[in-house]
């Protein structure tokens, strides 16, 4: 809810949004500052009654009292939190092929069978895509290889890495390269090349084998054991690195929560801890691709997800209290925004979203989309989010495309009736592609959006836990790790 209190002349407050949670009321303002008050104190403010001096001090420090605003400090916080507005796209997603040897139940990448090379990105397309990626004014360029299974198009991956590293030297920009792979096609030779080129490895791990293999059928073997084997390999290489001329990054893994995961939060988290993974990302299913098709079998409602999330987060916190090092990624990113005024690089939670101005998705056939979700919708036959073509469009054409501008307008929270009044607005964002797929319009109908319910619920859980001393200490310790 949004409130502008005019009658409380004593305090002369600025406008703010608020939301009642278990144990208090969260107040936030456009600077991204917040205060959590007791219901009693909040009522006093609403009624214009005198409030304790410590509270007045807290409110004025956070920019809630107009006569006591340190505008320079508040603006610098806002600018830091919204630094992405000043940089241009940094993330470049290369869909090297649609071929994949897995048949994951929730796949949203439009994977095709392993046979045939019709959906492989050609070297020419990859080279032009690298050139376009370096056209961005952003000094930090990331290239993320995705698929299908990107290792299925190894020759192009290898050439692209070499070319991108050369471009990096010429342009003097920072270049980060990441591989998102199921690791089933990995071998020592490929691994060596990836490590020597400082490529970070990210894979999918849905928990112990009985969940992972159910979600990620692999006809040629055991997906779980292969994934675990290679996570251990890269972890060992990371831990043993010494006197090398290159850096080896710790491998990371992504969890997609499906119906099969519900009730098994402990087993999933224990699996991550046993492999030495220090972060777990409770990602809800997106109603895109196969996931939308098989929603009845693998989907859930937001309440079911949030119950899983709460139990999982509380379990992770209890492990931290016992000295084990593991954090939850969504919580870590949101806390970084809330307390550190820093953009953690999660493009779906920006205003406006990262469509083209934060990321660009290069499809195997040269078509360019505002984001990977938009690319997937294109694969289903609807090019609403297509921003151009690598053979016909310039970088400026992509940024000026109607797809980009459409996403900019619809993901701007100032244009969203629900969002602009929401207490969590400073740290949240909407995804036009998810809206379009789930509700047939990029604007979405946020009040009935499952995505909104989930994020609102996560914020509620976080603020509730932040009100408890031990939990709060653990949660806040994750912010420094993110630095």
């Amino acid at each position, binding site marked *: 809810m949004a409130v502008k209190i005019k009658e409380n002349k004593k305090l002369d407050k600025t406008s703010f949004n608020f939301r009642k949670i278990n144990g208090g009321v969260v107040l936030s303002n456009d600077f991204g500052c917040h205060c959590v008050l007791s219901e009693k104190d909040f009522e006093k403010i609403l009624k214009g009654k005198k409030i304790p001096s410590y509270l007045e001090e807290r409110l004025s420090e956070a920019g809630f009292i107009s006569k006591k605003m340190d505008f320079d400090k508040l603006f610098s916080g806002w600018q830091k939190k919204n630094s992405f*507005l000043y940089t241009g796209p940094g993330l470049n997603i290369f869909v090297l092929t649609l071929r994949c040897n897995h048949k994951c139940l929730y796949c949203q990448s439009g994977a095709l069978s392993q046979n045939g090379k019709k959906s492989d990105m050609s070297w020419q397309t990859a080279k032009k895509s690298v050139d376009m990626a370096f056209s961005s004014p952003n000094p930090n360029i990331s290239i993320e290889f995705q698929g299908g299974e990107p290792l299925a198009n190894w020759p192009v991956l290898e050439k692209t890495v070499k070319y991108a590293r050369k471009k990096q030297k010429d342009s003097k920009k920072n270049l980060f390269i990441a591989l998102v792979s199921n690791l089933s096609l990995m071998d020592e030779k490929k691994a060596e090349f990836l490590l020597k080129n400082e490529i970070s490895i990210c894979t999918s791990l849905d928990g112990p084998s009985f969940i992972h293999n159910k979600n990620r059928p692999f006809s040629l073997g055991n997906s779980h054991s292969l994934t675990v084997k290679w996570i251990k390999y890269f972890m060992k290489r990371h831990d043993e690195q010494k006197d090398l001329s290159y850096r080896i990054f710790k491998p990371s893994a992504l969890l997609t929560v499906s119906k099969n995961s519900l009730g098994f939060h402990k087993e999933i988290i224990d699996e991550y801890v046993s492999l030495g993974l220090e972060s777990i990302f409770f990602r809800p299913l997106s109603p895109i691709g196969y996931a939308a098709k098989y929603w009845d079998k693998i989907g859930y409602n937001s309440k079911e997800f949030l119950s899983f999330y709460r139990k999982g987060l509380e379990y992770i916190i209890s492990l931290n209290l016992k000295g084990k090092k593991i954090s939850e990624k969504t919580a870590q990113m949101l806390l970084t925004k809330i307390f550190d005024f820093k953009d953690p690089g999660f493009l779906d939670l920006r205003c*406006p979203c990262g469509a083209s*101005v934060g990321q660009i998705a290069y499809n195997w056939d040269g078509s360019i989309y505002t984001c990977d979700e938009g690319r997937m919708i294109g694969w289903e036959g609807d090019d609403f989010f297509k921003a151009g073509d690598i053979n016909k469009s310039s970088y400026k054409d992509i940024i000026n495309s109607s797809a*980009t501008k459409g996403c900019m*307008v619809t993901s*701007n929270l100032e244009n969203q009736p629900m969002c602009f009044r929401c207490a969590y607005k400073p740290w949240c964002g909407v995804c036009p592609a998810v809206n379009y797929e789930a509700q047939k*319009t990029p604007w979405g109908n946020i009040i009935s959006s499952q995505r909104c319910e989930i994020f609102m619920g996560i914020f509620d859980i976080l603020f509730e836990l932040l009100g408890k001393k031990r939990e709060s200490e653990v949660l806040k310790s994750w912010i420094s790790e993110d630095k």
Partner: protein
Amino acid sequence: MKFKSKADTSVYSLEALKLASYILDEWQFKISTFGEIEVDGENPEKGFKELLNEALNQQCRIDLASKNSKIANIIITKAVLSALGEKEANK
């Protein structure tokens, strides 16, 4: 099947009614400047109710745009100009 009725123009602006009519493609709507509406299609009475419902949604967005369009445009312009490498955007 046709159905005729009138929308209360003190509640629904003509702009909101027109925007709503573009969204509901199951029916055809004729909207006069005085809010008289003719609905053509299957179950036209339902179409009329749906139109008014969607018009409220559109009205809400129109009102919000008139209030917030300035700040919304500044944010978008900054994001797009920065992505284009325009130095002016960072001033």
